[in-house]
């Protein structure tokens, strides 16, 4: 139960880096024994604030009180001494060591490295339901178990205030539920949890208090019992929330892409895609819904010429392109926003202007004959950066240095360049903050109005329903249902996606 003294009180925290104010006038109060959610868009200053609370960075202004005492945190060691522990998004575990060894590493003095430590780990694990076996190698653990180990490590070191940086980003829904059960146990044992996220459903499900950050400062608090997702999102964005709604239909009767009974078989003879037929008209967005791994990637790769279908036919603007290679298809006017932008969409260690060329190595303004047109590509990159609001210091910045949302905006801008006929968009707004999401939706909608045909694959059912003109549900490599977005609900789609019902 919450005690009288607040676990953490941050007052007037400010942090400046050369040329930028990362945090200013930040006030956060974490009541003892609660789960406190800190939400905000990417770049709102959450990370800086966490680092300040964990002693990684020193604030320029303001005060930190822990359990009623004002403290100065010079390093994470100070933070741990004050009972503050942090679980980073990227785990810091040694795979080739056991759970026990990982746990005691760097904390050997607490309970030794032998049976005392083992007993302590068992105690923590049993108390909070972590199900950790001290002598199992970490490499054998799944993501969720590793995360529990990280939390246990923090507790082992005596933390009573636990910071979790986007802990659910790496988990599947069932694992999220299990994590929340663990967090509730932690709370009932009197610990305080600072939960950082931008998934509003989860925040509403677990948090006792919510603090919203925007542009480096705290802009408000909300009570999860009464707040709605919509209200929270508006607080985060600071304006009316965009909706993916496309408005009136712009579907024409000209077929741009057509698949006839496309089947793709893997080397073991299993069907990855079975008799897929579809037609996308100019000005139409066809949405594909499905649980991940049901053939969406293969469908995209078949259309993009990365896999040649085992049987069936693909036509683009009436021309048979079944056996065309990726480059030829791209030259024919297909824009491609890949599912995994780091693996398929970018050269992370190249500057932005070289990334403008990627995928369009044979098209103006990037090249002149066999030569790279450096000035043309640079100029066009500048245009994309401006038109698509890519927040970067310049076009010589490495793609790796950009945030996910800005990387995605660059990709969208690139793929929309040169007026494509067809856009294959796989999860175009995944991992992108609300502002960038709205911008990307806007670009897709505008292009649709201008006659672009779009194949949209998304795990975000609101996005699918909002943008699509038609929705197909894919299950185990087959289309199992066609839905009308204006009448369908996410529940209907969910049922079809899991095979509960076909139409």
């Amino acid at each position, binding site marked *: 139960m919450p005690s009288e003294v607040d676990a953490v009180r941050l007052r007037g925290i400010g942090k400046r*880096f*050369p*040329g*930028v*104010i*990362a945090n200013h006038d930040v006030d956060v109060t974490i009541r003892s024994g609660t789960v406190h959610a800190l939400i905000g868009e990417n*770049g709102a200053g959450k990370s800086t604030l966490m680092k300040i609370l964990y002693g990684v960075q020193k604030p320029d202004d303001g005060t930190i009180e822990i359990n009623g005492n004002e403290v100065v945190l010079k390093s994470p060691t100070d933070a741990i001494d004050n009972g503050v522990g942090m679980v980073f998004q990227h785990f810091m575990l040694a795979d080739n060591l056991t759970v026990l060894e990982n746990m005691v590493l760097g904390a050997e003095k607490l309970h030794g490295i032998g049976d005392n430590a083992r007993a302590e780990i068992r105690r923590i694990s049993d108390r909070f339901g972590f199900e950790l076996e001290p002598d199992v190698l970490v490499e054998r653990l799944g993501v969720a178990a590793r995360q529990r180990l990280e939390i246990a490590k923090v507790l082992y070191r005596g933390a009573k205030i636990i910071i979790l940086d986007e802990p659910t980003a790496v988990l599947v829904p069932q694992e999220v539920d299990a994590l929340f059960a663990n967090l509730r146990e932690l709370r009932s044992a009197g610990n305080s949890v600072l939960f950082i996220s931008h998934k509003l459903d989860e925040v509403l499900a677990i948090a006792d208090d919510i603090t919203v950050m925007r*542009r*480096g400062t705290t802009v408000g608090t909300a009570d999860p019992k009464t707040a709605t997702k919509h209200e929270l999102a508006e607080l985060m964005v600071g304006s009316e929330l965009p909706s993916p709604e496309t408005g009136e239909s712009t579907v024409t009767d000209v077929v741009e892409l057509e698949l006839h009974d496309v089947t793709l078989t893997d080397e073991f003879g299993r069907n990855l895609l079975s008799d897929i037929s579809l037609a996308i008209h100019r000005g139409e967005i066809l949405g594909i819904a499905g649980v991940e791994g049901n053939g969406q990637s293969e469908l995209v790769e078949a259309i*993009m010429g*990365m896999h040649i279908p085992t049987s069936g036919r693909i036509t683009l603007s009436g021309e048979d392109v079944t056996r065309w*290679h*990726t*480059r*030829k*298809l*791209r*030259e024919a006017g297909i824009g*491609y926003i*890949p599912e*995994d932008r780091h*693996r*398929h*969409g*970018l*050269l*992370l*260690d*190249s500057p932005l202007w*070289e990334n403008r*060329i*990627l*995928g*369009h*190595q*044979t098209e103006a303004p990037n*090249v002149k004959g*066999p*030569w*790279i047109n*450096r000035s043309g590509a640079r100029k066009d990159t500048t245009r994309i950066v401006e038109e698509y609001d890519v*927040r*970067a*210091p*310049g076009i*010589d*910045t*490495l793609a*790796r*240095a*950009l*945030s996910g949302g*800005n990387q995605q905006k660059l990709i969208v801008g690139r793929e929309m360049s040169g007026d494509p006929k067809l856009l294959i968009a796989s999860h175009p707004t995944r991992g992108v903050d609300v502002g960038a999401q709205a911008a990307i939706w806007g670009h897709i909608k505008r292009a649709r109005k201008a006659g672009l045909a779009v194949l949209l694959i998304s795990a975000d059912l609101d996005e699918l329903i909002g943008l699509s003109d038609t929705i197909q549900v894919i299950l185990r490599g087959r289309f199992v249902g066609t839905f009308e977005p204006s009448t369908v609900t996410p529940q209907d789609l969910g049922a079809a996606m899991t095979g509960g019902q076909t139409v």
Partner: protein
Amino acid sequence: MNSVRLRRVGMALLAPAIAIVVSVLVTTIVIAAVGSSPGDFWSAMFSDPSPRLRVNIINQTAMIYTAAVAAAIGFRMGLFNIGIEGQYLMASFAAASFAGAAYLGGFLNVAVSIIIAVAVGAAWAGIAGILRTTRGVSEVISTIMLNAIAVTLVGYLVDRHGVHEGNSVHTKTIKSGSMVKGFTPYEPRDGQVWALSILAVLVGVGFWVLLNKTRFGFDLRASGQSQSAALASGVNPKRMIVIAMMLSGGVAGLVWLPALFGDAGSYGTSYQSQLGFLGIAVALLGRNRPLGMLFGAVLFAFLSAQSNTLTFGTDVSPSIVQITQGVAVLAVVVAYEVVRRWRTRLERRVVADEVPAATEATA
């Protein structure tokens, strides 16, 4: 923007600088540990090279540089062509045999021999490329094996068809009309700078142009950075692997030609092996960049040449130079990784600095 670029250049130089300092330190410690005088060693190493050594340094630089470019073509594409050694051995033998047979006269003989060297080097490397794309054999393994095969094969062929002279054997000597000597910067006894060293310059410039200015070079670099992104961008990865291997092997074929036509006149005892491995080391040292590798090649050639003077003035073995070279390569690989991480952090900070500022401006 300019300050960012300046910083980038500064950081690019930082890693090799660290590496050289570390290798000098380690060498000094090793020399001191075995009881010799590091002072004598370094004063001998950094003494002004004699004219004879200067000529030698230039010639060696050219050959090492060519080998380095051959290695770099593979590296930039994410391929480890460890078989440069075998490729230039095959190519040198083929070119020497053809030129020595004197089917053609004068300069034409030289030109066709160069083409043959390139073709043989490319073909030998192409075997590894095709094995990789059709059978999935790692090019590291296949090129090492092809090195061994090349040594045996050339040994057999030269023994079978070469000219035997006493204990030694060599290919037919090239007629003087088909030799490409070079120019004599000092006294004749100091030797000549071989004319075909110009091939190294052409290869270096060609490499830079190909990589930075052409579509093909972009595809190559993209494939090296991210196979998956290159595939999605429309690069045919199999074709790219074979072409890059052949290109690398073709350049490797040129490595020993300056010596062949400038001095040796035949493939035999004067053949210089190990240039391929030196080239790989220099490519690592120069980070596969044309200018970086030039610097590395000069450094390696300089160290090797200067080590000859050690025998006279000091009691330090010339082999110690190999430690310096080895440590330099090792240190540079580590230093580059450290600098790369540091630079990424810095870039992120720059982005973080400027981006919210832009937000404020538009708000």
